[in-house]
């Protein structure tokens, strides 16, 4: 099957690499992936037209265009509205996380997370990951 395209939006470069490495190493669970990195909300807006993506993973707390605004933009967009969005948030930002879910984000992952947590959350959104033949729960 073709690689799943994932857009990772996060302003910290090592956090982005962490997510990329985890996804790329998690082939067994997530399947083949092609990760695109965006370093800010604006960068994401610029990269979205190059989609569609199979999944967007975004941080909430970013300067200028924040993760919530990105979720709303994706949900309003004809082209991307069906794209699943996975939020990355910190433990003590319940309010922001709730808002994100209310705006149409599909799930969230609290920092810190392990590569395993990330892969299983991603694979839930991608709908079955590597083996689409297997029914998912």
């Amino acid at each position, binding site marked *: 099957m073709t690689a799943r395209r994932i857009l990772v939006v996060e302003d*910290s470069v*090592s956090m982005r*690499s962490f997510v990329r490495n985890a996804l790329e190493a998690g082939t067994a669970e997530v399947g083949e992936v092609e990760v695109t990195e965006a370093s800010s909300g*604006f960068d994401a*807006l610029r990269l979205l037209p190059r989609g569609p993506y199979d999944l967007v993973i975004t941080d909430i707390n970013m300067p200028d265009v*924040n993760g919530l*605004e990105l979720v709303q933009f994706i949900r309003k967009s004809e082209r991307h509205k069906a794209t699943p969005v996975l939020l990355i948030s910190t433990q003590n930002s319940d309010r922001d996380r709730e808002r994100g879910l209310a705006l149409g984000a599909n799930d969230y992952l609290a*920092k810190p997370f392990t590569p395993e947590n990330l892969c299983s959350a991603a694979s839930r959104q991608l709908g079955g990951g590597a083996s689409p033949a297997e029914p998912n729960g």
Partner: protein
Amino acid sequence: MAEGGDKAREEFLSEAQEIIESLSRSLLALDASLKAGTSDPSLINEAFRAVHTLKGLAGLFGAAKMGTLSHRLEDVLDGLRLGRMDLTPETLDILFNAVDVYGRILQVERDSLDDPLMIVDDLVGRLENFGAEDKEEMSPVVEYDLDPGMLAVLTEYEEHRLRTNIEQGLGLYRLRVQFELATIDKALDDIKERAKTHGEIITYLPTGETTSADTIELDLLMASRDDLATLIGSLGADNVVIEAIPRRGRPSRAPSQPLTTAPEARQISSMDAPSPSALDLADSSDVAAEPAGSLRSVAQTVRVDINKLDHLMNIVGELAIVRGSFSRLTERLRGEGQRQLAAELQRLHRNFDRRLAEMQDGILEVRMVPLGQVFDRLARVVRQISREVSKEIRLVITGAETEIDKLIVEELSDPLMHMIRNAIDHGIEGAEGRQAVGKPEAGTIALNAFQKGNHVMIEIEDDGAGIDDEALIAKAVSQGLVEAGEVPDLSRDEILAFVFLPGVSTRDEAGDYSGRGVGMDVVKTNISKLGGVIDVQSETGIGTKMTITLPITLAIVSALIIRVSRQLFAIPLNSVTEAIAFDESSVKIVDGREVMTIRGTTLPLCRLRKLFQFPQGQPDDKRRFVVVTSLGSRRLGLVVDHLLGQQDIVIKSLGKSLASVRGFAGATELGDQRVCLVLDPAALIEEVLVGVDTREDFARSNG
């Protein structure tokens, strides 16, 4: 996988370092704004975001102590940015302290040191007392007719900023802007910069409406004291439509315009100018070009380990040696009558030369970093010391953008810090002392950097009391560094140079800070290890200025190859001003020292034959040369037998066993497998001009 893990970890540590530096910058700016009585909420938010990111990273990469500290700091900064706490100098102190603690944590993480990091626990303990009072926020937001879609996407912080601005009576505006995706960063910076003078942009919301694939429409929510007309005048444009967001119910406190102006304003500023078809064509070609542009924007920088650059530079050095063989080969071919081959080889040689030079420049450029990196750290130190010794200090920095080799920057931190400490501790007088002589109460330390030819100059200038000559002389005499009888003959510069001798301090009781076991002699040694020199100027009652002259890079240098007796030596060209024919008859003896006069100025001489104790006065001596070296304001003429030409060299260290031999910067390999010693003009100038007594030691240790 393990290797990937190491790499990720390295990336994490280097990003953490950058974040900590940016945190420090935000805190310094906050400190300045606190002192000036102004406040910039975005600075607190930047500090919060820095700590927030550190916390997240610490969690992912298992840096437990960093996580604990960040967690507590985040709470404090969150309280500050959400207005639950007020920023006080005490809070800032703790935050500055945290920057230092972070530095230590990084060091321990990086070098896997065995340090339980109790300082983290101490600081966390102190932070426990900073509980945020839970000020309940009123919600005046509902007073505004805000689009619920816009309210829903505000983060907690943005919502707080919105409330605060409304409470303070600012009016709200919506800026609908259209940006080209390809140039969005610049357009955004531009509007941010212009909006700054009028108020605060609270958020940027993409509307989802697009007119074409390469543009994006955003709604900017802005709070401002200015009225709509002013904002339109300043920020309005074809692609920027500004509307006031009306208040509900009671009359507005904000200087907002009557409702009716909004649509008008919209019409005026959004009037579509009919575009000529040529423009349309240009637009469509932009569409095609856009994807490449947007791809490039994602990752424009990479991090590179400095050792890898060193390795590349060494290869360039080896290639430079290979290059040397080209010319010899060409000569040989020519000698054997192979003219055509020789010409072809020469062409290749020239091409190779050019590319090699480009490559060398390229690598050097990558190694360059702005001095601002170390200046930021110094600003923190100034703040800390000035608070602890209760002296108010104004630090004025110029030339922070001046670039220098990364390795030099790393080594500069300690010497500069020590000099700054000296300036605050010994130089700047106490408040009463300053008032008594009519100086402003706050002392000023100027830190200036600039490039001058192949050198970078750094000046540290204070407006303090200046160096006390009498005390300096007394100390030097009592330490046996100079005979009391010689003192009257000494020039002021020679006296001031005493501060760089071991064991000399202008005060009997060393101050708290500058007295930490390091003297100016150590500073001087460290600077000369970097191939630099340090000069001091001082005027009693007016202040002291230390000037450091450094090479821009240590990696590769152009050198003049000379011969003395049968030995070859290299002299780095950056300290050579000229080479002239030596005329024995022009030598005079002044104060027991050989000098000659060139163009009206006196030049002290040093005969390398004599210095190195080579046999004297051979017949081939009749045509000799003087190589004029200079560093800072000092000059010395080196008398040599032959000039062999100029060559780029990579200086290799002489190794530990010879490290104590002064006068040599190292050794290098010339193109023909010959090895030669590289002279260190800074040390030579030092030994010959200042250390009259040490000259013998010098000759002996090299003999």
